[in-house]
């Protein structure tokens, strides 16, 4: 049970622990499988993915790089995710202060509301926003429905609830007496928030930003109805490519994406224990 507790040495006890370790290894292998599989596929030489592979090569990375659709999808996704995350955090922080510090009726209900992106099907959110933007476009003449700004508006619905939840949780964890000390020393609530509270929770802010970015970058459902030619996100470009042809190109793109996001996560985990914060 514990790493320290003295363990029984009867044969049946030793056997039971071995079985537990084997089961655990199996579960972990299963979780690691997709990662390993994608990396493996990306290095297969042949056009048709077979086991055992015909050979290994780096050619699909070159092919991927030369696909304009994938390249521009990557740039669009990067831009959308960055804008949606930044805007998300900007509106989120004050709202989180109100939620974490305020005492008002329905506070619990509001926190439940933050689960809503989980329960409304993403594809329907996307379609609804599309319908809504078309209406606005008809009324005002602004070309929203086909622009990347439409995608940003939709992706804010992904980033904002995550950010509010993370930042609120971090604010709740701040020792109130530290803020009270600042107030007693003459800092107004605004000055206290800026000079004391935010510096104390910045690992949480970083985690919220990274998490929002990753969720936005990888989303396919919400974007599906909002993309337009030349304004396609990477996951949708991948989808479109796969519907046309299944070859290791996409595996190569995925590995690139995995390395990018993986690096961001590792960098973040130096600042904060993401596993704990999220």
């Amino acid at each position, binding site marked *: 049970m514990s790493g320290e507790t003295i363990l029984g040495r009867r044969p049946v006890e030793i056997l039971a622990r071995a079985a537990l370790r084997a089961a655990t290894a199996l579960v972990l292998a299963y979780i690691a499988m997709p990662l390993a599989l994608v990396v493996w596929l990306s290095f297969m030489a042949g056009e048709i993915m077979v086991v055992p592979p015909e050979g290994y090569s780096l050619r699909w990375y070159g092919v991927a790089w030369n696909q304009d659709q994938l390249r521009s999808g990557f740039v669009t996704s990067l831009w959308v995710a960055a804008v949606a995350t930044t805007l998300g955090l900007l509106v989120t922080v004050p709202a989180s202060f109100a939620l974490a510090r305020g005492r008002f009726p329905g506070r619990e209900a509001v926190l439940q509301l933050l689960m809503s992106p989980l329960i409304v099907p993403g594809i329907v959110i996307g379609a609804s926003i599309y319908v809504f933007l078309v209406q606005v476009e008809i009324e005002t003449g602004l070309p929203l429905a086909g622009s990347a700004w439409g995608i940003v508006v939709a992706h804010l619905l992904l980033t904002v609830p995550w950010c509010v939840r993370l930042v609120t949780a971090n604010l709740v964890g701040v020792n109130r007496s530290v803020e009270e*000390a600042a107030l007693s020393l003459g800092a107004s609530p605004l000055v206290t928030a800026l000079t004391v509270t935010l510096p104390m929770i910045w690992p949480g802010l970083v985690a919220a930003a990274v998490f929002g970015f990753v969720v936005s970058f990888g989303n396919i459902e919400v974007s599906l109805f909002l993309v337009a030619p030349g304004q396609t996100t990477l996951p949708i470009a991948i989808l479109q490519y796969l519907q046309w042809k299944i070859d290791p190109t996409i595996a190569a793109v995925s590995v690139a994406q995995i390395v990018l996001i993986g690096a961001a996560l590792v960098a973040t985990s130096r600042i904060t224990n993401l596993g704990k914060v999220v």
Partner: protein
Amino acid sequence: MAGIRIESLAKRYNAVSAVDGVTLDVRDGEFLVLLGPSGCGKTTTLRMIAGFVAPSEGCVRIGARDVTHEPPYRRNIGLVFQNYALFPHLTVEENVAFGLRRRRVGEAAIRTRVATALSRVKLDGFGGRYPRAMSGGQQQRVAIARAIVIEPDVLLLDEPLSNLDAQLRHDVRGELRRLQTELGITTIMVTHDQDEAMSVADRLAVMEKGQVRQVGTPSEIYRRPADRFVASFVGRANFYAGRAERGIFVTASGLRLPVADLAEGADTLMIRPEAVGLRPAGADGLAATVETATYLGAGWELELRLAGGERLSVVAPDAGEHWRQGQILTAHVAPTAGVGMRTGS
């Protein structure tokens, strides 16, 4: 510097009174301790003085100023918390400078005043450290420096020693009292520890259930407690029901004890365990049997049973005897040892 005047201060949460009409006058430069068990309202009272809790009734005056409706950041108070509440992302120097920066003091003046404050709490040379790299006692001294550097009108201390271990608690309370005397700053401290309260206070206010039971100097409170609650909270005490008869207290079982300065109408006699003398069996006094005897190094804790069936707790210095269960001896209660009180119940 200024005195503090609290008038009929009350705080109610729904129907429950946390603080129920507290009136206190703290003189300029005085060290007052609010003493009481947890939940007695002492911390809520302190937080109303600081401005973190809005009173349901009453008012708070600091010097001539009515601050009842002022936010905490316009009260000019120094506050020290049980958990230190230092800013973890700032160095010691920046922690102490925080209040001065809010007051837009010049950089040169900040440096001088921070250095003076740190040297007052004996932390010269620690300015560049971060709080997490310091011991609990050092952190609490930083918190004290941060509170006094702004030259507050009053200093409020909320269980400042509770997180420190026994030896450190003893040292820091001495330093705290010395510092307060040097600065002459009006101070209110909240604690549940009777030793701590007695050792630093000019006056104590003993609280129970949201109300002040008694206000007075440590010796007034210990020697002439106003009621049973105060008597047993500021020390241990034996109580006997009975009645006063011209200088003699007669207990329910008929024991007659001469008591100096006994008011007519007293219905309870209080005797401190350390005020009882122990003598050999047969000597002048009350015959008693030892029920339990506990050796505590510096002394003994005895539970005695008297002839009339009453129990008497005694704390005696260790004079080399070895007390044993079942032993018979004489307990001597001097006329000055007993205090008569009216329980009113």
